[in-house]
């Protein structure tokens, strides 16, 4: 099982690549809605990409109130 640090790193890589922002500009505690400039539909897109990448299911309600990469990584790690 990957470490939480590795999971976080993969999330940041994936987000940077898909939403076309420089990886170096993303930090774990960023609000990804603001940093990536995404709306609710794009957040769903991100959720699906993360599920596909990590081969996990992330029920939407587990993400309620989650807006930073670090907490997102914790939620994913709990399902690996």
């Amino acid at each position, binding site marked *: 099982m990957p470490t939480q640090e590795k999971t976080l790193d993969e999330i940041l890589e994936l987000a940077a690549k898909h939403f076309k922002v420089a990886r170096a500009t993303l930090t774990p505690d960023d609000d990804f*809605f603001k940093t990536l400039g995404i*709306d*609710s*539909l794009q*957040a*769903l*897109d991100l*959720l*699906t*990409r993360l*599920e*596909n990448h990590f081969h996990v*299911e992330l*029920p*939407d*309600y587990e*993400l*309620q109130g989650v*807006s930073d990469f670090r907490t997102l990584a914790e939620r994913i790690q709990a399902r690996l």
Partner: protein
Amino acid sequence: MNSFQGRYLSWTLAEGAIELALHRDPCNEIGLLALEELEKFASALDDLARDAHALILHSTLKAGFCAGADLRELYFRSQPMEKARAVEGVRTFLERIHRVLNTIDAAPLTTIAAVHGVTFGGGFELALVCDLIVADKMARFCFPELRLGLIPGFGGIPRLKRDLGNAVVRDLLLTGRSFNATKAQSVGLVSQVVAEGEALRVARATAAQLGKFDRRTALAAKKFIKPIPYHELKQEIDLFCQLFAEPAVERGLQKFVESTDAQPYLP
């Protein structure tokens, strides 16, 4: 009419396949305009089907297949009305959309929904009337109606019950969570999961395969395999209308319409 170009949808007939394309921003929400054009399509379907063996439903919009009922229109139309009149309006709308969806469900050809992105609520219900669902791996399926104090109203519950195990139906409806395409395939909802942007191409390839079979046999098989739960569909309309009369629904709709939440689609 072998082709039609509307504001909400368009259709064409070529090489034995009818393609019904949805193209109303932001994500093909189904309101009165959509209903009228869907009714037009349903009226034309018998004629179109004489020269076709397959029907493909898809969306040309990036956001997804369809986000379901137009909740803003529903709220702004219902809000100034007396409750009883608003409920009657909703019932009429539901009876009309049910007639359309029942027509597509029973269509005398094989139907394929090629879905991607948001396939929520009424959009999910539109896909559920089709015989096969081909899903882009970025498709997402959800029935978020409970957050509004409602149940799906376009025939979703009886058709889910027809196609899936009851535990999965409960999971989808009672939690309001969304499933990705892989999960939807694992529970038996989706027949094929394909790479991003490939759903329509694969649906066309599937339609071409269907064209190799005798049409009357295919139709006989479809009728035998796929019963339409008319009685439960009517019960669903009754229950929806009963719930729609509750004050919680108006509050839920108002919250949705006025939401500045970054995640209004997340239940």
